[in-house]
């Protein structure tokens, strides 16, 4: 009689398999023994073993199918993330569904983008109010209230940025929350006060000698502070690069693994100081605005704030034009 191996896969149906197994075992055992309890126990064992093998095989097949599904889902997810990033770059606000699979960092960035958009809207409303007051030759008292309001509102974005930098410093540093043309001029997560003052000087006339000298000093001081912070950032980059380069090399021995971990820990520490640089840069912006206001009269401050807003509005308009430009 032909020896039919129970491993031969002739069907995937469990019941049929079972019947086949029983048949195969009976065949290899010879005629069915009606009274041999030993033979029956052997039959049972053999059958159990064969069933185990079959179950194991099916389990492996299921696992393989599951892993393949995971891989293709992962690729899809990466694609979606890239699309989302592209959409955001184009200024299209994509709302988060509150999906828990999103990382904390991602949520922090989106949350900030929303807050910034809201802040900008409120800022524009205040600027329009200021423009109205200036054009209608409002009194100093009324102007001062509106100007103080705009400056206090500036304070709130610096506070919001500070919190956002704690959650996701790289998002703030990237400037992705600003429009493309603004990003051209990005310095440590925001605008350069010294450049702003250079632009303003011509729009602030008439200035007294004292005022002109003070504004020039302010421009020079903020430039010096900016340079100092920039050099600190360069030193940080250099230090980080050296730390990471130090961990290169043959990674065979366990000693090197310990080295690697130590150097990664050091690099992590250095990355942590980035938030401090953003904070100091924002502090510089805030202080420069405050001191400018201190040097100028109320009316001059009003005109300065309007000029600053005009400038950034143009940058944002330029960004929109750029994004909408016809392409081949």
């Amino acid at each position: 009689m032909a020896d039919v191996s129970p491993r031969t896969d002739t069907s995937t149906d469990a019941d049929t398999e079972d019947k086949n197994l029983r048949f195969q075992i009976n065949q290899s055992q010879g005629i069915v023994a009606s009274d041999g309890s030993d033979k029956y126990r052997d039959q049972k064992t053999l059958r159990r073993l064969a069933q185990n093998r079959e179950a194991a095989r099916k389990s492996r097949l299921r696992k393989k199918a599951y892993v393949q599904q995971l891989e293709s889902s992962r690729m899809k997810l990466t694609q979606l993330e890239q699309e989302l990033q592209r959409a955001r770059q184009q200024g299209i606000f994509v709302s988060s569904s509150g999906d828990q699979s999103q990382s904390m960092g991602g949520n922090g960035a989106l949350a900030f983008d929303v807050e910034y958009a809201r802040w900008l809207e409120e800022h524009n409303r205040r600027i329009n109010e200021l423009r109205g007051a200036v054009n209608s030759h409002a009194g100093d008292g009324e102007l001062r209230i509106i100007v103080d309001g705009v400056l206090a509102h500036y304070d709130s974005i610096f506070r919001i940025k500070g919190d956002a930098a704690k959650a996701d410093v790289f998002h703030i540093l990237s400037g992705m929350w600003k429009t493309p043309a603004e990003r051209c001029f990005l310095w440590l997560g925001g605008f350069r006060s010294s450049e702003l003052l250079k632009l303003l000087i011509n729009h602030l006339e008439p200035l007294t000698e004292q005022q002109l000298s003070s504004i020039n000093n302010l421009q020079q001081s903020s430039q010096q502070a900016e340079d100092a912070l920039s050099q600190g950032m360069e030193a940080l980059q250099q230090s980080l690069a050296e730390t990471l380069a130090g961990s290169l090399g043959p990674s065979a021995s366990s000693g090197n693994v310990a080295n690697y971990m130590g150097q990664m820990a050091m690099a992590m520490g250095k990355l942590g100081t980035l938030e401090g640089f953003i904070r100091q840069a924002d502090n510089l912006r805030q202080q420069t605005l405050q001191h400018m206001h201190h040097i100028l009269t109320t009316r001059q401050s009003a005109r300065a704030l309007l000029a600053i807003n005009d400038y950034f509005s143009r940058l944002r308009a330029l960004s929109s034009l750029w994004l909408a430009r016809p392409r081949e």
Partner: protein
Amino acid sequence: MDRIRDLASKKAAVIFTKSSCCMCYSIKQLFYELGASPAVHELDKEARGREMELALIGLGCNPTVPAVFIGGVFVGSTTDVISLHVDGSLKQMLINAKAIWF
């Protein structure tokens, strides 16, 4: 504390730093740009560095480095120094302490 006070009184401009601190590097560059030659003491290289750091915490210096003293007087850390520089006070302090001349 004594060591801090002692070192702080020895030169018109004194900065306490740590060798790995890049913000300290920024503040040092600012002082050099202004023409000051501050005495720089790295706490991680000082024998009593930990003690000195605690003394700075006691002075309210946050973060502890960089810690700036002008004319022996505690000025503050980075935020304070930059704020004082923006309104012109830092330069005046340095002139008064004869760390710079103009």
